[in-house]
């Protein structure tokens, strides 16, 4: 169990460092470390991230948008260790500004072919990037109905 855990931590760490470079313009330090390296099976896992030119001492000092990108990088790093064929994202792009939304979509595009994404969003850029768009309405109050807004051509998917 110990061996597997340490190996997983190393792999997640490498992926995390890679993904952070995709999501942040320029990053000075990105790391995942054990709070107590002598006891890996119980120790807390600490995240370090220093965006361009900044010196935050802990992940708490990052802004709302920066925290969201860091969490996305971590979740995708975990994902790469044991990839699930699909990934569902519910309004994770809400705190992101224009530039970071584009980086987020670039990250998703990095996984096309390997992973299927279903994204709930209010963000126009994310809607534009989607192949298929389903609109959900409640014209009859209290009852959800689906309206297909734009469907990808009926080409067989990957």
């Amino acid at each position, binding site marked *: 169990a110990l061996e597997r855990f340490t190996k997983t931590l190393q792999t997640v760490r490498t992926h995390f460092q890679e993904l952070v470079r995709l999501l942040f313009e320029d990053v000075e330090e990105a790391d995942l470390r054990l709070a107590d390296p002598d006891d890996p099976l119980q120790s807390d896992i600490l995240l370090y991230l220093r965006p361009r030119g900044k010196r935050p001492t802990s992940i708490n000092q990052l802004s709302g948008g920066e925290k969201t990108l860091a969490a996305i990088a971590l979740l995708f790093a*975990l994902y790469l260790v044991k990839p699930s064929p699909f990934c569902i994202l519910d309004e994770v792009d809400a705190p992101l500004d224009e530039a970071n939304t584009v980086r987020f979509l670039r990250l998703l595009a990095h996984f096309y072919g390997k992973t299927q994404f279903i994204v709930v969003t209010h963000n126009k850029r994310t809607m534009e990037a989607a192949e298929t768009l389903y609109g959900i309405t409640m014209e009859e109050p209290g009852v959800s109905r689906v309206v297909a807004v734009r469907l990808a051509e009926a080409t067989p998917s990957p």
Partner: protein
Amino acid sequence: MYLARLELHGFKSFAQRTVFTFNGGLTALVGPNGCGKSNVVDAIRWVLGEQRVRLLRAERMEQLIFNGSRTRKPLGMAEVSLTLLNRENRLPEAYTEIRITRRLYRDGTGEYLIGDTPCRLRDIQELFLDTGVGPNAYSIIELRMVEELLSERTEERRRLFEEAA
């Protein structure tokens, strides 16, 4: 493997039978506040075996069944089916596609099905073992989780690492 089809009937605000077909790329669900988008996400977590009512934004399981509206009576059952296409043979060879179904009745009883055959939750969990498919955290991500994931309470982070190991 990917999600090919999702059918909801009587699950939360989906009073009528509703079908989504998905292709393998990026699909977006859009619509005004309160129209039912997150209910679709809850339906996928639930059909994959989620037992924690909290994570389904309810207090008791029967709140997952359509509870009526101004013009309709509450329904007696909620049913969700999910069809997965088995492209890269992550699932046993015999299947090209698999359809799992979960039902819940007002009296609290429920059932699971693989295809048309009734089964137990354990059978579904075994089917998906080591495929990465399940109600677990890192394949279904909500904004609220972002705050939890980075907070000082690191048990949540620890749990995710153990699930991936």
